[in-house]
């Protein structure tokens, strides 16, 4: 492995800095209004997760439609982290919007989401049962060349931790069952949007949108995606200008999908968001790996692996982005 390059570079976090965040906010708000007008809808619904993305979208929606025409929907379920609700409320208060609380656990129970997931987990960890917590994790792109194959981490009520590679069928079933969560949330958001004649606002940032970090017809569904063109670093920049509370801005991004706390790097991305943003920018602007390596204190080989991971995720996300095809288009 070669040592991190140390050459001077013009590439770094500054390339992502929005020169005029107020102008960006005004442009986005105008775009949201245009979209709603085009759909003949008069406001917006946003699912609040307590994270920075949905908080920024809520604040942008308040600017676009007026706070009285925005509904924040809080949709915790049995595996949600304890601070999700409190942070969602903080975001709504800061944006001045109304909220509604929809506990989706009974819907997920009815759909068999937990039962189906647990049945697949027990094929790998037979002792798994009530009181256990789980998450899926990927090997680090930075630390090894290993293929990115998911392992299941399960923790027993007395703290014993088991890690096991998931065979294909178990992996697919765990993911398929868990996807009920994002799809149920979207169903509830559309209920309120239809009831109020609002648009549904999607909350993916550019990293998530580009790399397919969403569930098709779940959190990937929306009428407008106001921040899908912004790198996560830029979302944080807007969050500050929009007055998103510090507690939300300082919380590390999580998936809040599995019962054990899970970072987005463990589950999907190769690097923390700020470095991932720069790698994505570098791929899109043909910045050489050596220059990126110098800026991020990584080796060229590590950066090349991140680039390859970005390309691989783009291939996979084609399916996630695709609208239903007509036979003539296949």
């Amino acid at each position, binding site marked *: 492995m070669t040592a991190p390059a140390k050459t001077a570079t013009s590439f770094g976090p500054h390339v992502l800095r929005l020169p005029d965040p107020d102008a960006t906010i005004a442009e986005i708000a105008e775009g949201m209004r245009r979209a709603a007008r085009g759909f003949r809808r008069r406001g917006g619904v946003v699912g609040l997760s307590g994270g920075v993305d949905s908080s920024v979208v809520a604040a942008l929606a308040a600017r676009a439609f007026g706070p009285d025409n925005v509904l924040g929907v809080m949709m915790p379920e049995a595996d949600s982290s304890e601070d999700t609700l409190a942070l969602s409320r903080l975001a709504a208060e800061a944006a001045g919007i109304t909220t509604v609380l929809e506990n989706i656990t009974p819907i997920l129970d009815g759909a068999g989401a937990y039962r189906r997931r647990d049945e697949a987990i027990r094929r790998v960890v037979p002792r798994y049962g009530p009181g256990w917590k789980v998450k899926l994790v990927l090997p680090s792109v930075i630390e090894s*060349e290993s*293929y990115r194959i998911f392992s299941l981490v399960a923790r027993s009520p007395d703290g014993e931790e088991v890690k096991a*590679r998931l*065979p294909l069928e178990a992996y697919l079933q765990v993911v398929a069952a868990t996807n009920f969560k994002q799809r149920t949330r979207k169903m509830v958001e559309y209920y309120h949007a239809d009831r109020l004649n609002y648009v549904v606002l999607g909350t993916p940032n550019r990293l998530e949108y580009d790399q397919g970090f969403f569930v098709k017809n779940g959190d990937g569904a929306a009428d407008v995606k106001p921040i899908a063109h912004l790198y996560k670093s830029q979302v944080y920049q807007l969050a500050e200008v929009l007055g998103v509370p510090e507690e939300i801005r300082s919380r590390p991004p999580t998936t809040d999908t599995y019962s054990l706390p899970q970072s987005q790097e463990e589950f999907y991305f190769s690097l923390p968001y700020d470095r991932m943003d720069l790698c994505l920018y570098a791929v899109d602007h043909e910045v050489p790996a050596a220059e990126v390596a110098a800026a991020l204190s990584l080796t060229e080989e590590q950066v090349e692996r991140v680039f390859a991971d970005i390309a*691989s995720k783009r291939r*996979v996300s084609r399916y996630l982005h695709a609208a239903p095809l007509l036979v003539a288009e296949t």
Partner: protein
Amino acid sequence: MKPDSGSIERELRQFLDDNFILDGGAERLDREESLTQAGVLDSMGVLELIMFIEERFGVQVPDEDTLPENLDSVARVVAYVERRLAEAAAA
């Protein structure tokens, strides 16, 4: 009877054809061609390939072996399976 490299390769190409390529194209894959670069394998495909190796040839693929140097071309998979079979026979 332990399969030879020729039969491992034939079965592997058939598996790739049946699961990923579907039009007989696996016959045209160069032995050294990267299965990832050729768009044949993604991360889910790697899981399927591991399952195929474990079930068809009866060898375990431990986590530390899930590397491109073992699995990213027809030639590498054949060599890997042969090595694991030899290790199992010697054990």
